[in-house]
């Protein structure tokens, strides 16, 4: 027979413990639950939005009664347990219901502290804890006007905000001169106060409540200074007290809360306790994140696994008042020996403060811009040494190490172990994995499977970003260390290694050898594999057109209306009158709807019909042009500036060098697009320092810069080294390009690649190792022999003609 498990308290921590148990061993126990409230388990945190009218009770139910039925749990709602008989191992409720237990979990939560002042028992005086309290407040708001909230902490302000939204005239009373002093320093507190005042909330700071006035129903409030104000409702939000009476009466050892060990066992080994009623290592908690950690450990022991340990939690706070972004964590009031970093922009309403000790984040307060809260919190918990990025830490994570275009969204750049949902302790990696493994597509599904965003909901936006970046466009997906795509479990690196080590030289062999899950891959892995094979075996592998994205297959950029654009190469941006005339003629001949000078120093002919392409290319070829590869994962343009030839500041012949580099590098296939620029002096008119490979000419030679990106996320280059001659520039350019070609993941631009592998590695291969550099450069030249064939000419001569000629219906 199964052992009997009884849970007292049908709240957030207790039911979470049951969920964890069901995950570990659903067959283990016969479970019975007693809850004093007349509902299934609901999300207490969300009472604030319910009060504000943003959600209904139905929206916040976590486990409806069917859930208990489905999991064979006996639920007694509206039953308060009044007695625990530890000798006979049974519990008894106020209605006289009884249940026997082998193991017992006490999870009775806490109650609002009601100030022991005259009038505290008047009608219209409520706490803010459960559905009943919210119902009372909503009912009052319908018929009365004035409300007072005592206590400007987290709960008090959420109550005040809700009542304000219900149309009440609201005054918040606080004993101290800063609101939310537990969570905010005085600066952030003042900013918060100002923005709440702007919404119409009134504050009486440094006011001590002495008595509540009224006959039967509350009518006013009197302070220690003698002042009185009228009111129809008083919400007491001055603190909470763990519910320990029941445990105490059963003789279980309690102090402020029920005292538990690191396994969440009370002094009676058959009885466990979790949640707000618990005191662990001297601390009681009032936020769900630590309680959920407790639940996990408690379940681990109840399922007799015995290895979980709860060692206490560091908590962070967010305020759930819509339109107000606020975050705090750790010890954010500096004490001796601490240093403080502060950034403040009063006009933007932004304030960030970090308290640092021994180069580690000890506490953080943020107001107005809390995007980096989870990052700071991670640095805090992991005690990361921040000395290397201290000077920019206040600007956020993106300023430190996530440059590159990264799909544009911040979440893409978070590491897998970065915590996204503070309430449930869910990291990015878990979310991504659940989305991929379980095929999740909606926020609700992700919430259901991972619990991320399922409690206070303030991370829903982040979860959604992860969802978008995970299931979103495959082509723009930033390659990660994880499986290449759904077709395999292997990572990019593993696949590349297999290709080179095992000598895999065509796609069919590769699919078979590496046990691909799909017969011929997908639109995400096929272009990557085609590239890896091409790069590894330049002289042997035959390019597979059908594995290329349309742009590279037909050598033009597909437009939204299905036409294509044509960008002829203009080496270094140089052109002659004859060139321009030829382009003009082509434009006339084919009725090109629009022409434009591109950001890459050449001319784009937009809106060309596919069938016209080969003929147009032929005309351009005849005029001396080749493809500009404006569509390719490969060399795009080499931008140049006027340079020594013309410019009064020029130090070297930048035009000529740019043209040479473009002749050297055009046509090569790469993991992603690649842009080069050569500037004639440090004024840098060719913008070399945001290019994949940039040359800045100086009097004594050439500075070589790498890893720049001017796209979605601007990244300035890192200096690779300085060289003295053009010959060296070429050699370094070839070696760097080849190293990028061989080392980066498909769809990883140099910026992302360098962020991932580090400049040290690049320098070790391209700068420090002279022999290695020469070998890389030679390999690049070998692959260029095959690659430098103008694809336009091939097609103008008839190659792949099926692409450009539609079928006709015979008959």
């Amino acid at each position: 027979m199964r052992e009997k498990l009884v849970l007292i308290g049908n709240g957030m921590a207790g039911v979470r413990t049951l969920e964890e148990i069901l995950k570990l061993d659903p067959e283990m126990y016969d479970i019975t639950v007693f809850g004093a409230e007349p509902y299934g388990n609901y999300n207490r945190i969300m009472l604030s939005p319910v009060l504000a009218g943003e959600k209904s009770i139905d929206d916040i139910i976590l486990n409806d009664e069917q859930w208990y039925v489905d999991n064979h749990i006996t639920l007694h709602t509206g039953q308060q347990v009044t007695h625990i008989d530890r000798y006979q191992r049974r519990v008894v409720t106020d209605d006289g219901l009884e249940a026997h237990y082998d193991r017992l979990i006490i999870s009775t939560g806490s109650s609002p502290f009601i100030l022991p002042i005259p009038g505290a028992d008047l009608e219209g005086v409520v706490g803010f804890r459960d559905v009943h309290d919210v119902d009372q407040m909503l009912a009052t708001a319908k018929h009365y006007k004035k409300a007072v909230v005592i206590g400007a902490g987290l709960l008090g302000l959420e109550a005040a905000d809700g009542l304000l939204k219900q149309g009440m005239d609201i005054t918040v009373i606080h004993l101290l001169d800063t609101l939310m002093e537990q969570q905010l320093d005085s600066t952030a507190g003042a900013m918060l106060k100002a923005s709440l005042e702007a919404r119409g909330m009134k504050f009486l700071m440094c006011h001590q409540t002495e008595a509540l006035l009224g006959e039967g129903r509350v009518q006013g409030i009197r302070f220690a200074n003698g002042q009185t104000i009228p009111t129809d409702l008083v919400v007491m939000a001055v603190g909470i007290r763990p519910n320990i009476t029941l445990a105490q009466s059963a003789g279980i050892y309690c102090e402020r809360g029920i005292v538990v060990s690191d396994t969440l066992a009370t002094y009676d080994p058959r009885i466990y306790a979790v949640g707000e009623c618990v005191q662990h290592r001297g601390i009681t908690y009032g936020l769900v994140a630590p309680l959920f950690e407790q639940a996990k450990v408690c379940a681990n022991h109840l399922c007799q696994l015995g290895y979980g340990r709860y060692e206490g939690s560091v908590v962070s706070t967010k305020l759930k008042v819509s339109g107000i972004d606020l975050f705090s964590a750790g010890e954010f009031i500096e004490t001796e020996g601490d240093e403080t970093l502060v950034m403040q922009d009063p006009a933007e309403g932004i304030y960030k403060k970090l308290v640092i000790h021994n180069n580690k984040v000890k506490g953080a307060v943020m107001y107005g811009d809390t995007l980096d809260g989870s990052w700071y919190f991670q640095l805090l918990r992991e005690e990361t040494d921040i000395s290397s990025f201290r000077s920019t830490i206040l600007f956020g994570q993106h300023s430190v190490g996530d440059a590159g275009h990264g799909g544009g969204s911040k979440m893409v750049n978070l590491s897998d172990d970065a915590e996204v949902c503070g309430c449930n302790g869910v990291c990015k990696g878990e979310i991504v994995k659940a989305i991929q493994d379980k095929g999740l597509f909606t926020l609700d599904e992700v919430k259901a499977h991972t619990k991320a965003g399922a409690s206070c909901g303030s991370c829903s936006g982040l979860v959604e970003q992860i969802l978008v970046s995970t299931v979103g466009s495959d082509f723009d997906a930033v390659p990660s260390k994880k499986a290449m795509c759904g077709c395999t479990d292997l990572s990019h690196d593993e696949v590349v290694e297999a290709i080179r080590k095992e000598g895999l030289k065509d796609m069919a062999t590769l699919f078979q050898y590496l046990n691909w899950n799909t017969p011929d891959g997908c639109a995400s892995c096929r272009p990557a594999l085609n590239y890896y094979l091409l790069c590894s075996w330049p002289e042997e592998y035959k390019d597979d057109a059908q594995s290329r994205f349309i742009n590279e297959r037909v050598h033009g950029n597909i437009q939204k209306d299905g036409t294509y654009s044509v960008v002829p190469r203009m080496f270094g941006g140089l052109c002659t009158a004859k060139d321009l005339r030829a382009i003009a003629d082509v434009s006339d001949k084919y009725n090109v709807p629009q022409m434009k000078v591109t950001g890459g120093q050449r001319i784009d002919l937009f809106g060309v019909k596919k069938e016209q392409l080969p003929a147009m290319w032929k005309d351009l070829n005849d005029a001396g042009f080749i493809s500009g590869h404006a569509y390719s994962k490969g060399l795009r343009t080499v931008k140049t500036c006027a340079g020594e030839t013309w410019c009064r500041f020029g130090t070297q012949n930048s035009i000529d060098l740019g043209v040479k580099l473009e002749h050297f590098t055009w046509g090569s296939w790469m993991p992603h697009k690649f842009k080069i620029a050569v500037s004639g002096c440090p004024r840098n008119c060719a913008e070399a320092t945001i290019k994949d490979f940039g040359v800045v000419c100086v009097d004594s030679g050439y500075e070589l810069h790498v890893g720049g990106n001017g796209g979605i996320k601007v990244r300035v280059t890192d200096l690779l080294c300085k060289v003295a001659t053009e010959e060296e520039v070429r050699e370094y350019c070839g070696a760097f390009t080849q190293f990028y070609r061989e080392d980066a993941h498909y769809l990883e631009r140099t910026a992302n690649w360098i962020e991932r592998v580090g400049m040290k590695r690049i320098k070790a291969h391209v700068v420090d190792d002279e022999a290695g550099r020469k070998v890389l450069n030679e390999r690049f030249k070998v692959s260029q022999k095959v690659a430098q064939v103008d694809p336009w000419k091939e097609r103008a001569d008839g190659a792949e003609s099926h692409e450009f000629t539609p079928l006709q219906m015979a008959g």
Partner: protein
Amino acid sequence: MSDWIAIAKLTEIPQRGARLLKTDTADIAIFRTGSDEVFAVSDQCPHLGGPLSQGIVHGNAVTCPLHNWKIDLNSGDVMAPDEGCVRTYPVKIEAGVVYLGATEVQATIGK
């Protein structure tokens, strides 16, 4: 029943690729998969009209070149997470020649 009209030799369609068939009434994408099955669907992606014949073919599906919607060529259904469907046309291969069901193509005139 269909009147079958020959439209191409199988070899004229690249494996894991497509050819565009222009008719008076519709642009139809004729696909040939890696296992030499042939499918015909309207060349307009149900999302924003992208030319499906230009997409990458994998298994019995094609990924639209514009925003990566995936379409099951057999049913014409858009694959999750997106939703929608495209019109499919009957096709068959006989002795290396691909035939399209003309009645269905004619029927699109009325649309």
